[in-house]
């Protein structure tokens, strides 16, 4: 029987808090992304952008364009959160390519934490855009009887966001392990190529759904403003 995908692989403990291997991988990804972004944006110029700056600008503008298409609103306020979410998820899903590294999203804690971040940020953006009263007033529309259903929808939405990402990445790794055990060394290579696609598509879907949720919180029942 293969190892359980739900088991936590504890490396060491800080006081009562166990630190798993996945958390260390996440720290590594955060360090690489933050350090890389910091180093790459030191010498930016408007007149003569370097090669690296051009590539980064293309990435940021593509993400901003996707958010603008989805929200039909100026994306500047949302790019820091949603763009970071996408970049982190893409790198995290693809980190399994490096031998010996396990994708953090293949364990349920990381997707759950990200889904909670999305949940809280929908409230943050909703309250900021429409005010406390209007935002939470949405829960008792069109009828106060629907309040439990609305709360339930919020919870299941977050939960399905978690399980979607976790299940896709985890099941892929499990299938790779089983095929490797059954067939031999080079057989899983096409499946690994498929895994790159799955990782990117799931990162895209997670970010797009987060964008849609934020958009629903920001502009619920309001006439669309011209963008």
């Amino acid at each position: 029987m293969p190892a359980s995908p739900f088991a936590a692989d504890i490396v060491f403990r800080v006081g009562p808090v166990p630190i798993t291997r996945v958390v260390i991988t996440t720290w590594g990804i955060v360090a690489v992304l933050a350090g890389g972004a910091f180093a790459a944006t030191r010498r930016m110029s408007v007149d003569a952008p370097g090669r690296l700056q051009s590539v980064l600008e293309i990435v940021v503008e593509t993400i901003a364009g996707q958010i603008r298409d989805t929200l039909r609103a100026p994306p500047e306020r949302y790019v820091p959160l949603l763009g970071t979410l996408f970049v982190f998820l893409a790198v995290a899903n693809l980190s399994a390519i490096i031998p010996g590294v396990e994708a953090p999203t293949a364990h349920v804690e990381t997707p759950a934490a990200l889904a909670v971040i999305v949940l809280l940020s929908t409230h943050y953006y909703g309250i900021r855009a429409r005010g406390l009263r209007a935002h939470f007033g949405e829960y008792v529309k069109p009828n106060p009887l629907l309040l439990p259903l609305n709360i339930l929808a919020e919870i299941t939405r977050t939960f399905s966001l978690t399980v979607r990402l976790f299940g896709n990445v985890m099941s892929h790794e499990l299938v790779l392990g089983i095929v490797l055990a059954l067939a031999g060394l080079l057989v899983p290579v096409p499946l690994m190529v498929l895994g790159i696609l799955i990782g990117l598509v799931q990162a895209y879907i997670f970010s797009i759904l987060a964008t849609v949720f934020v958009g629903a919180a920001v502009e619920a029942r309001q006439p669309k403003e011209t963008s």
Partner: protein
Amino acid sequence: MTPQALSILGAVIAVSFGAIMPAFAEGRALAAAMDAIARQPEAGGTISRTLFVGLAMIETMAIYCLVIALLLLFANPYAH
């Protein structure tokens, strides 16, 4: 039947139905998308992008069933 045998049976049933239904759904989605592309080839890019996301969404249902099956096999409180 022992709890182990029951949970294995439950996992098998979950995965089999979770494979059949999304397969039908993905087939229908693909057929509709091909129909749309055949009618309107210039909209092919948008359609296939939406199709991709939609297929991943449908596939998620199969993944849910897989997660349930794995929970039954690995994290079953009654079988261990």
